[in-house]
């Protein structure tokens, strides 16, 4: 009875995807049944008092597509265009006139996930290429869940093989190999709350030194144990969601850290939503970091660094994300974050001294289309 047939199923389906709150993946272990493509552009700038430093322009693409009702492929491609000055040691910037260098990086990754009734297996590869740094990585992730899907166990394993060859031939053919292990549990606590806790163990061997820093000589092995716990709770009366994250890292370099992040997602009328966030990070200095003047504490044959990233500091990141849902499965978002890192902000005091505050800001615009 052709006369009573409604609109083409495809058109209705496409229209239905505009329903707000319907995300391609209902809960993590459900198979995504709609694909989406996303383009984001990140514009990053950092500086220290009196001097601009790095500028990074980072366009990126991400695609997720279900190939069948149990097989999903996803992948991303990003490009980093970096220019500007970075410190040679402490806050002393590189380049004769402080103008610095230009560099680029291209990176891509692909992951294939197969879903079964009570478990899923995902296999991924990643490749990153810079003028002086090539990284290849492979990973496998197995997830398994209870019959009521309220608890998921995740087991991950990854290996990466990196090759470093710095300019001027000073460093050629150095390698760095890292093995990562992950064990995580996700537990739905109630109809409005969910928690996830992951422990990651990373063992690296090889070249960790930064060849662009003066006198930099790092140990040839690094072990990192990271424990991340995330908690989301929805408040139906306010229509908003609270997101909390806490991470503790134990690092063989000595740069142990604590991070706390809090955010609130608030939907607004007409498809708008806003997400203010605040992150605090505090870090101990590496055992081989010595404060100014450069070279103090340096002993022949012993590890040494004057890289402020391995100093003891605290850092704050206030941020805001604004998003709007449009018709036909389109949505746009804009994120703005400001970052500042200071020795005096380290929790408990004892931050590294003699360093200037480091500041950064980044803006990220994104467009997403479900299909």
């Amino acid at each position, binding site marked *: 009875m052709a006369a009573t047939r409604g609109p083409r199923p495809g058109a209705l389906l496409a229209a239905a995807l505009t329903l707000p*709150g319907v*995300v391609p993946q*209902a*809960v*993590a272990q459900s198979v995504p049944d709609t694909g989406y493509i*996303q383009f*984001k552009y*990140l514009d*990053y700038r*950092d500086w220290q008092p009196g001097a601009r430093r790095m500028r990074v322009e980072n366009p990126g693409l*991400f695609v997720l597509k279900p190939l069948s009702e149990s097989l999903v492929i996803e992948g*991303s491609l*990003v490009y980093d265009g970096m220019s500007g000055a970075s410190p040679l040691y402490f806050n002393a910037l590189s380049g004769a006139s402080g103008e610095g260098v230009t560099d680029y990086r291209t*990176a891509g*990754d692909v992951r294939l996930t197969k879903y079964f009734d009570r478990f899923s297996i995902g296999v*991924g590869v*990643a*490749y*990153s290429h810079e003028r002086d*740094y090539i990284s*290849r*990585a492979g*990973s496998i992730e197995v997830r398994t869940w209870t019959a*009521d*899907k*309220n608890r998921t166990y995740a087991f*991950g394993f*990854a290996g990466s093989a990196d090759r470093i060859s710095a300019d001027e031939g000073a460093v050629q053919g150095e390698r760095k190999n890292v093995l*990562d292990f*992950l064990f995580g549990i*996700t537990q*739905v*606590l109630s*109809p*409005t709350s*969910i928690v996830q806790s*992951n422990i990651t163990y990373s063992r690296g061997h090889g070249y*960790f030194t930064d060849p662009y820093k003066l006198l930099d000589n790092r140990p040839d092995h690094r072990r990192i144990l*990271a424990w991340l716990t995330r*908690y*989301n709770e*929805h408040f139906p009366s306010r229509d908003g*969601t609270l*997101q*909390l994250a*806490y991470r503790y*890292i134990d*690092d063989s370099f000595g740069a142990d*850290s*604590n991070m*706390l992040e809090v955010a609130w997602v608030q939907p607004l009328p007409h498809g708008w*939503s806003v997400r203010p966030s605040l992150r605090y*990070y505090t*870090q101990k200095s590496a055992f081989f970091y010595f404060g100014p003047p450069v070279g103090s504490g340096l002993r022949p044959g012993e590890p040494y660094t004057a890289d402020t990233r391995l100093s003891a500091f605290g850092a704050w990141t206030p941020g805001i994300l604004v998003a709007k849902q449009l018709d036909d499965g389109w949505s746009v978002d804009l994120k703005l*974050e400001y*970052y500042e*890192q200071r020795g005096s902000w380290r929790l408990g005091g*004892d931050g590294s001294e003699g360093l200037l505050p480091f500041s950064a800001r*980044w803006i*990220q615009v994104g467009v997403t289309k479900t299909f």
Partner: protein
Amino acid sequence: MSSSASAQRWACANLKMKALRIVVAGLVIAALGGCASYAPPQAWEKQYLALPAMQFDADKLDAKNIQHVYFSKEGSAGGYGVGGGGCGCN
């Protein structure tokens, strides 16, 4: 600085770090136990879990970009997942 004063400062900082960890662990446990009671939902009660804001990996490209920024500006990183590969921005 005399060794006993520096030892005292070290001991004090160590104690503060331990106290911080206990406080944060307490906050996490309170959030888990206090805000929401443990009542795992039935299949038909999962509408709020379907919201993007309730997902942990809703925006993968954003997470990738932001974690990359922090990896290049802070000493230690990780915990979110495995297999991203590296870069020269350590």
